[in-house]
């Protein structure tokens, strides 16, 4: 029995030494791999080998070379009622007969603390409390994201494109989804309608179009808006219609005839 035991100990010894050698080799290998611009997989593998060496080494020592000892800690109460009472007396010394002083002091410091929060207002520019407005005014041409103008033949029936006011193709608050509806005889502007691309729910771009249902679909939370019915929400968490942009063709090119009637962007406590 004694022989078996000493053999298993010496085997554990060998494992631990092998692991330490592995760790040293991996450490050098990592430095070399870094210098040679080795790829992700090589560097990762070397590090994994090194740390697994630590795992096996530590577990081998703990399983075979140290005794599996258990210790018992006695638990002692942390509190000391005598000290509590003394401390309470000591902290109130001087305030003992004047509780008013203590309370007023706390109130004064509290007030000062609140006052020090006021400069938090400077975290935002002074004029920034109002929400964004779009760049559309009467006569502003609508263009594609690349700046090119939009003519009557820009869209097939029942298809969509994203349009911006000319000169502001980076202004997300002004992005609109332009849809060409089927011309049922009384459609104006060749069936073209434009709705804000900013979802009234959480502000994501309403980027998807379900042609079969004439619905704009938001990819973030799946609100659907019926473009044949003023882009009213028909399903999903959005509660407000997408604001409509008044448009017309002038000299064959699309332009705005005014701004959105409602504020653009996600609905919040303040509507505008």
């Amino acid at each position, binding site marked *: 029995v004694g022989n078996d035991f000493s053999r298993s100990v010496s085997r554990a010894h060998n494992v631990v030494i092998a692991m330490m050698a592995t760790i040293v080799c991996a450490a050098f290998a990592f430095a070399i791999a*870094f210098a040679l611009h080795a790829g992700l997989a090589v*560097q*990762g*593998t070397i*590090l*994994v080998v090194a*740390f*697994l060496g*630590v*795992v096996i080494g*530590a*577990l081998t*020592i*703990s399983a075979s070379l*140290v005794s599996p*000892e*258990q*210790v*018992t*800690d*006695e*638990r002692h109460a*942390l509190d000391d009622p005598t000290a509590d009472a003394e401390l309470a007396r000591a902290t109130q010394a001087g305030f003992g007969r004047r509780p008013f002083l203590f309370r007023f002091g706390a109130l004064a410091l509290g007030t000062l603390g609140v006052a020090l929060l006021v400069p*938090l207002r400077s*975290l*935002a*520019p002074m004029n*920034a*409390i109002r*929400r964004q407005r779009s760049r559309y005014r009467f006569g502003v041409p609508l263009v594609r*994201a690349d700046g090119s103008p939009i003519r009557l033949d820009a869209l097939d029936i029942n298809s969509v494109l*994203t349009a*911006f006011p000319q000169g502001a193709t980076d202004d*997300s608050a002004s*992005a609109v989804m332009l849809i060409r509806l089927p011309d049922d005889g009384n459609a104006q502007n060749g069936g073209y309608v434009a709705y804000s*691309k900013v979802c009234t*729910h*959480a*502000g*994501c*771009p309403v*980027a*998807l179009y379900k042609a079969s249902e004439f619905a704009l679909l938001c*990819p*973030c*939370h*799946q609100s*659907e808006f019926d473009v044949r019915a003023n882009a009213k929400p028909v*399903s*999903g*968490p*959005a*509660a*407000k219609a997408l604001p409509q942009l008044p448009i017309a063709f002038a000299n064959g090119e699309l332009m705005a005839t005014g701004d959105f009637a409602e504020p653009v962007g*996600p*609905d*919040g*406590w*303040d*509507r505008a």
Partner: protein
Amino acid sequence: MIVERAFAWVDERVGSSRFLRSAIRKAFPDHWSFMLGEVSLYSFLILIATGTFLGLVFSPSGDMVQYHGSYAPLAGALMTGAYASALNISFDLPVGLLVRQTHHWAALIFLAAIVLHAARIFFTGAFRRPRELNYLIGISLFGMALLMGFSGYSLPDDDLSGTGLRIAQAVALSIPLVGTWLTTVLLGGDFPNAGLISRLFFIHVFLLPGIMIAALGAHLALLWRQKHTQFPGPSRTEGNVIGSPLWPQYALKSLALGAFLTALCVGLGAFAQINPIWQYGPYDPAFVAAPSQPDWFLSWLDGALRLAPGIAIGIGAHHDITSVFVPGVLLPAFIFAVLYGWPFIEARVTGDRRPHHLLDRPRTMPVRSAIGVTGVAFMVMLTIAASFDVQATILHVQLERLRVFYQVAVLVVPLVAGALTWIVCRELNAANAEAEPMSRRVEYERTQLGGFEERLVPPARVE
């Protein structure tokens, strides 16, 4: 002896040896579930190590630059300095991508370990007196870890991270009275704005980690001072803790665990792609990739936003309680209120205000376990619902139908799961009460004549 001289040198200047002599004999109970807190600790250390590297090489700039790095599909594209910097770390900095992906994986594991650790604390009653204070610190650490995850996800300024911020803005805007004001102050203006990324960077690499390190220090110091809880067992009482001594048994196992987690995070970082920001492209508020999903630990919030009915309640002519407010603000506020309040709620309801150092088995507390399972099932259902658009595509189900299914399931499944838990706990208790004395508490002794003598041993549970 050099070790002895070193200890003597330190002891003369710090006076630490008397403390250390008893500290290395401190008892650490061996139950596997006690490892979960350690896993969170080690993933946090990995996050600090990888995060320090990333923080030094990342440029949190909102200024527009033209991309000239080696990722060809985006050559010449206009983007923020932050996104260009994240691309450079991924493609042109040696070990950059490895560190970035390891950091992301460590964050996902960090949050998972915290959640499991918190579940262990809840279901075994480890939050009871005198550990309420440490429980509150733990819940705060969980909240800050969520904020860390979100702010980190937002830093590279790719299309998905910008979309996440956009949604957060809508949530903040929905808060009654102060929403607009609060949003503006938090974001530093409207969204997006050029200063936002450097503000998030400061929050992610200094403000939150600073508070978390302090809170974690307090968490561990209190754990040390109050000593571990333990499951009931032979000679384990309310008055002691039995386990492996800190040195060397526990230290070796803990070292192995830390090294294993490092190997796991690095291995995942090397072989499992995570958050491939180059595929999403730079943030463009007018375009978004579908499907868009947050990291797993915030999916429950996204799921809640998706399932809420599209109803806005007008307050006067100028104000709305929006459909974002309940799932985005009230729900998380309620969840954290319950988490923070639980030790006090339970003490009030059960009237049990005694100190407890021996843990409950979940089955012995059917009501607590049922409530816990209800909560967990609710969060899991919300998380699953956060990808219902992808599921609808895969299953060829109408979007709207699947949404209605989840709107019902998210309320029904947790209640059923809770009720089942209650029943199962009661059954297990009943079975236990009959079986335990027979199966576990019998010893056999060989008599001098060569026969066996059976004897019942009274349970060694001491209060």
